[in-house]
C-alpha cells in the first residue's frame, strides 16, 4: 500500500461500449491543490467518482489514504462535491448543514464555521431552492467541508460563480491544502489552472498531462495555460 493520499494505477472504466477512462495512473502528494482539467466528456467526473468510491470500475486500482477507494473507513475522511449541488432545495441552508452534520456526527460549531467559510452567513435561514446557482453550489461545498476531510474532491465547484467569489474559494482550497489536505478540483476554465499546484489533463479518458503549471508552459513553449492546453490536446489527438 502506498502512502500517497490518492494513488490511481491502471484505472479503466468501460460503460457499455464507451471507454470512459483508459489506463489512468497517477499519485498525488498531501497538501496540494490539484487541478483536473479537460474538455467536457473527457472523463473528469468518472475519475472523481472512482476516487470517491461511487464508481464501478473495470480495471486497475484506486487507493485513497492507503485504503481501497470506497472503504467504509474513508467515508468520513473524504469530502465530495458533485457537479449538481446535492442539497435539499426545500430546506434552508442551516437545516441542510445541520442534517449532514448529524449524519457525520460533527458539532453545531462546525456548521457555523462552514457557513462562514463559504460566505453564506446571511443566507442561512433561506430555502436553498430560493438561492442563486452560485450560492447553491456553495451550500453543497459547505456540506463537503463539514467533516474536515483529509481529501476533498470537488467537481467543477466554481461554475457560475463571480470572479471575486471564485478567487475567495481558491484561497479557501489553498488554506485547506496548507493545513495538510489534498484538494482535487476539476474545472474546464483554463485560467483556474494557474491557481493549482499541479495539473492533470484528461482527454478522451486518457491522462495526457501530469505536471506543474510552470512545467506545462515550459514544455509547450506557450505563454498562457489555455494555449498550452490546446497544444497538448492537439498533440494528443
Amino acid at each position, binding site marked *: 500500500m502506498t502512502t500517497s493520499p490518492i494513488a490511481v494505477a491502471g484505472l479503466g472504466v468501460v460503460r457499455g461500449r464507451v471507454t470512459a477512462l483508459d489506463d489512468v495512473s497517477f499519485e498525488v502528494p498531501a497538501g496540494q491543490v490539484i487541478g483536473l482539467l479537460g474538455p467536457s466528456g473527457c472523463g473528469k467526473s468518472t475519475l472523481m467518482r472512482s476516487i470517491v468510491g461511487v464508481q464501478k470500475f473495470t480495471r486497475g486500482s484506486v487507493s485513497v489514504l492507503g485504503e481501497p477507494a470506497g472503504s467504509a473507513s474513508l467515508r468520513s475522511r473524504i469530502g465530495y462535491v458533485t457537479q449538481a449541488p446535492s*442539497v435539499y432545495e*426545500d*430546506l434552508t441552508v442551516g*437545516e441542510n448543514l445541520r*442534517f449532514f452534520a448529524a449524519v457525520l456526527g460533527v458539532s453545531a460549531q462546525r456548521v457555523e464555521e462552514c457557513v462562514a467559510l463559504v460566505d453564506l452567513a446571511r443566507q442561512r435561514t433561506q430555502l436553498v431552492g430560493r438561492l442563486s446557482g452560485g450560492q447553491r453550489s456553495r451550500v453543497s461545498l459547505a456540506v463537503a467541508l463539514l467533516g474536515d476531510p483529509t481529501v476533498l474532491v470537488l467537481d467543477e465547484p466554481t461554475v457560475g460563480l463571480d470572479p471575486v467569489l471564485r478567487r475567495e474559494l481558491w484561497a479557501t482550497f489553498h488554506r485547506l491544502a496548507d493545513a495538510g489536505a489534498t484538494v482535487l478540483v476539476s474545472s474546464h476554465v483554463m485560467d483556474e489552472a494557474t491557481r493549482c499546484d499541479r495539473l492533470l489533463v484528461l482527454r478522451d479518458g486518457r491522462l495526457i498531462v501530469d505536471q506543474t503549471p510552470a512545467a506545462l508552459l515550459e514544455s509547450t513553449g506557450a505563454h498562457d495555460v489555455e494555449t498550452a492546453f490546446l497544444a497538448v490536446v492537439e498533440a494528443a489527438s
Partner: protein
Amino acid sequence: MTTEISPRITLAVARRVLLQLRRDRRTLAMLLVLPCAIIALLRWMFSAQTGTGFQGLAPALLALIPFVVMFLVTSVTTLRERTSGTLERLLAMPLGKADFLFGYALAFGAVAAVQSALAVGVSIWWLGLDVSGPTWLLLVVAVLDAVLGTALGLLVSAFARTEFQAVQFMPALVIPQMLLCGLFIHRHRLPGFLHAISNCLPLSYAVDAMTAVSTRTNPRVGADLAVVAGFTVAALVLGALTLRRRTA
C-alpha cells in the same frame, strides 16, 4: 447491506424528512385531510341506503388509504433523493443503508399514525362506524399498512427514472391489489386462480385484518399482521439492495 443501525443517523434522516414535509404545507394538508374527506364521502354515498354498505367498506378503505398515500409520497420523495444526488452524497458518508431506510419508514410511519388516527377518529365518532374490536388495533393495522406502502414506495423508486414513471407504478402495483383485496368481491368468491393470486398480495391481509378488527370483538389478526410485516421487511431488504454505493 450494512446491518448496523445508528440511532443518531436514523433519527437525523427521519427528522429531516419530517422537516421537508412540514415545509410543504399543501402536501401535509392533503395527507391529513384527504383520507377523512374520502371516508366522509363514502358515508354520504350510503346515507340514502339501508343496509351495511358503509360498515362493510369503511374498514377496507381505512387500510387502503394510508397504504396508497404513503406509497405515492415515498416513491416520489426517494426518487427525488436519487436523482438530485443527495442519496449518492449520503452513501459516500458514514450512513448505513438501514439508517436511510428506517429513517424514512420512521418519518412516514409517524405521519401515517397521525393520518390514520384522524381518519379512524372521524369514522368512529362522526360518521358512526361501528368497531367491535379494540380501536387501537385498528390504528396499529393502519400504521402497518402505511409502513408497507412506504417500503414498497422505496423499492419501486429504484425502477423509475422520473417522477412520471414513479407515479405510474401506483396503478400498476396498487390497483390490482385493490381489486383483489376483498373490497369489491369477498376474496373466497373470486375465481380460484384469482383467489390464489390475492393470497399472495399484502393488501389482502391488511384488509382482512381491518375487517376482522371492525367486525369481531376478539379479533385474531396476528397472522394477518405478520404477513403484512413480512412483506414490509422483504420490501425494505430488496430496497436496500437497490441503494448502491457504487454505480456504473
